[in-house]
């Protein structure tokens, strides 16, 4: 896992090695083991390396023997061994054992279609000297990030936005439409980011620059409803096939020349991936988790049970309110977009634990909820639709109580309240966004905090309308459950979970996460499954539970779902909260950045100080304002501070051996 960047001079002049050097220096945290760059005429590529495969000869940028193709690559091609064999049989030769060289030869053999042969998580750039063509690609789900921008004379790309901002000619301006999207969906709609004129290559897309022309092409999408050919086997066969696929997805994700650990949250998903690793690599497997001082969020009893059952050597890092407040500003420097929840923070602390324990690679259970029907938002939509068919029913809305058993405030409410909150109008029922409207409408209320000037810049822009225009043409005819899955996987997974909470938090401490549930074969299999095998009535991840019975403790298999959450805004109002919180929320700082209305923010802050804030919306508002303030303030300052590795020790690390 690594950091990459580069540039192409569109005026044909020589690329400046110093500029590339400055860009790659900002990505030190992604690749602290080695740094390299290459300038070949008008193109320059650079690489910060985290050595995982072929430690001796895998240095980058790498070229073909004839010097025609140059590559800088972040990620892993897990099926590189099989591809290498295939390419050898076609007459290609290899000087290294790395997956990087497999990409180069595959590109030589298959051209831009090479990406269809890859099973992995990648972002890479290839410069073809002969064709004078730059080719960029990002993996199917966007596990690895890739941003780009264009100035008057250059095309620039990088793993993180901060590397682009290292170039003085790249403007540092917040994009009001990007902000409007974040404060609706929690994510921006690719290719947009929250910075003007800085774009992300959408997941499953490639990009070429040739003859000063930039072309973006989609090479893959999740094949929901694509061939109208649902899974033909019975339930038992489907469970068997799923288990087989997960085993193979895990097997190829253990390919590494350094030891691999596992995140073990105590939920079913990471317990399954850890169990699969345990079956394949029967040595002292290390597992890692977060514990919370706040019992509302803590899952340590399940973590101990899973670790004991699987015989892993387990370590955990404790996360307190004070920890969240203390590292939040560092976290936002890495997310590079505002966040409305603090949930990425513990992931930041967890990756530090992993790194300090001597590990660079972990397998995690991320993605199972999206791929196999685990999210409450799917269940919520199902109940709301069911109730809408008989709005006068006295007992149908009571099903809402079955939602969110872990939310204490929610459970205390009279059914009448829930009925009002979740009530369904005829208009909503017709919406292709039925499943997500409650979440989006709640988040969109936070836009009331925007200043009049910022609202004027947004104007009549309609984020939901833009999303509607980007949907597949036949989306409205899809099953409702599939519509929800598409929105969650296509946007929320890649734009938030795999970035703000995934890659960015792991790579902040030079740790690579690998996701067996997100193997594209698992996705393609799951996309064809009948909906009732994912959520049977209201039993989430039904097929996964059936497939993995025996692999994981029964208590974990049967435990009610508790999504990963962290304490939110109240962390910033404890007596020991760091000074930056008060400074950035002050009317002076709010007015200086101009995004929010100072009076409105003061009203919110006072509500928290008085202990009167209790709603989810207030929590999201405060976290959203603070993260935006951090981002807006940081990006107007030099980014060099980010190139320093984080050495601050803030949390206690405990090691427990249950085996």
């Amino acid at each position, binding site marked *: 896992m690594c950091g990459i960047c580069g540039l192409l001079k569109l005026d044909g002049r020589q690329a400046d090695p110093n500029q590339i050097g400055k860009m790659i220096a900002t990505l030190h945290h992604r690749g602290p083991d080695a740094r390299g760059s290459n300038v070949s005429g008008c193109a320059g590529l650079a690489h910060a390396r985290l050595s995982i495969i072929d430690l001796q000869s895998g240095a980058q940028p790498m070229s073909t023997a004839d010097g025609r193709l140059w590559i800088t690559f972040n990620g892993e091609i897990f099926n590189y061994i099989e591809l290498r064999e295939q390419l050898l049989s076609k007459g290609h030769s290899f000087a290294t054992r790395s997956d990087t060289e497999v990409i180069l030869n595959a590109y030589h053999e298959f051209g831009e279609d090479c990406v269809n042969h890859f099973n992995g998580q990648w972002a890479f750039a290839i410069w073809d000297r002969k064709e004078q063509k730059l080719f960029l690609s990002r993996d199917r789900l966007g596990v690895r990030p890739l941003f780009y921008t264009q100035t008057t004379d250059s095309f620039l790309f990088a793993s993180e936005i901060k590397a682009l901002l290292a170039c003085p000619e790249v403007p540092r301006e917040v994009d009001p439409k990007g902000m409007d999207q974040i404060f609706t969906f929690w994510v921006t709609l690719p290719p947009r980011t929250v910075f003007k004129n800085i774009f992300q290559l959408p997941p499953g897309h490639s990009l070429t620059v040739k003859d000063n022309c930039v072309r973006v092409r989609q090479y893959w999408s999740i094949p929901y409803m694509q061939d109208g050919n649902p899974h033909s086997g019975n339930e038992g066969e489907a469970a068997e096939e799923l288990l087989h696929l997960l085993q193979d997805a895990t097997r190829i994700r253990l390919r590494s020349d350094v030891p691999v650990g596992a995140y073990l949250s105590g939920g079913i998903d990471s317990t399954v991936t850890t169990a699969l690793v345990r079956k394949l690599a029967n040595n002292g497997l290390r597992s890692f988790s977060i514990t919370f001082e706040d019992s509302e969020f803590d899952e340590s009893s399940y973590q101990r049970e899973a670790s004991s059952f699987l015989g892993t050597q387990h370590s955990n890092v404790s996360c307190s309110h004070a920890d969240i407040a203390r590292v939040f500003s560092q976290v936002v420097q890495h997310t590079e977009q505002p966040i409305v929840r603090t949930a990425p923070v513990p992931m930041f602390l967890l990756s530090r634990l992993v790194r300090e324990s001597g590990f660079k690679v972990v397998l995690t259970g991320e993605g199972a909820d999206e791929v196999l029907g685990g999210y409450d938002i799917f269940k919520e939509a199902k109940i709301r639709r069911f109730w809408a068919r008989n709005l006068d029913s006295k007992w149908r809305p009571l099903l809402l109580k079955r939602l969110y058993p872990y939310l204490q*405030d*929610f459970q*205390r*409410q*009279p*059914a*009448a*309240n*829930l009925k*009002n*909150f*979740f*009530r369904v109008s005829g208009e909503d029922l017709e919406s292709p966004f039925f499943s997500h409207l*409650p979440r989006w*409408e*709640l988040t969109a*209320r936070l836009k*009331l*905090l925007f200043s009049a000037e910022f609202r004027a810049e947004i104007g009549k822009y309609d984020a939901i309308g833009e999303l509607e225009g980007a949907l597949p043409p036949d989306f409205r005819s899809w099953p409702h459950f599939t519509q929800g899955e598409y929105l969650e996987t296509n946007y929320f997974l890649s734009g938030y979970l795999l970035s703000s909470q995934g890659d960015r938090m792991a790579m902040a401490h030079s740790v690579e996460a690998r996701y067996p549930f997100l193997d594209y074969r698992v996705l393609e299999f799951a996309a064809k499954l009948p909906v009732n095998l994912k959520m049977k009535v209201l039993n989430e991840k039904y097929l996964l539970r059936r497939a993995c019975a025996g692999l994981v403790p029964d208590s974990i298999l049967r435990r009610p779902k508790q999504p990963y959450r962290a304490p939110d805004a109240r962390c910033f109002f404890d007596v020991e909260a760091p000074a930056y919180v008060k400074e950035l929320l002050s009317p002076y700082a709010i007015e200086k950045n101009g995004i929010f*209305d100072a*009076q*409105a*923010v*003061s*009203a*919110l802050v006072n*509500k928290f100080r008085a202990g*009167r804030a*209790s*709603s*989810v*919306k207030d929590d999201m*508002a405060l976290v959203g304002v603070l993260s935006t303030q951090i981002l807006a303030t940081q990006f107007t300052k030099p980014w060099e501070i980010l190139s320093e590795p984080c050495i601050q020790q803030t949390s206690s690390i405990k090691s427990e051996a249950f085996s």
Partner: protein
Amino acid sequence: MHTTDIEHQIRSFLVDNFLFGRSDALGDHESLLGGVIDSTGTLELVVFLQDRFGLTVEDEDVVPENFDSIKHVAAYVARKLDAKACAGQ
């Protein structure tokens, strides 16, 4: 208590508590439930009404007919206050 006064107090509470002080964002007839007020917010409003006006709000009263706009809430409070006054006479 005059209905206009009740409305004013309710409006002030809603604007301060749910709209970050943005009074321009709330119309007299705007739907409150599921929009202005989220699910825990309904409880906050109920507690406010009980404290401020000395009422007891029953669970079954928390329905759109009583809570869907400032006008509805003010009318509900006025009715409850009238009933209380009659009972006290």
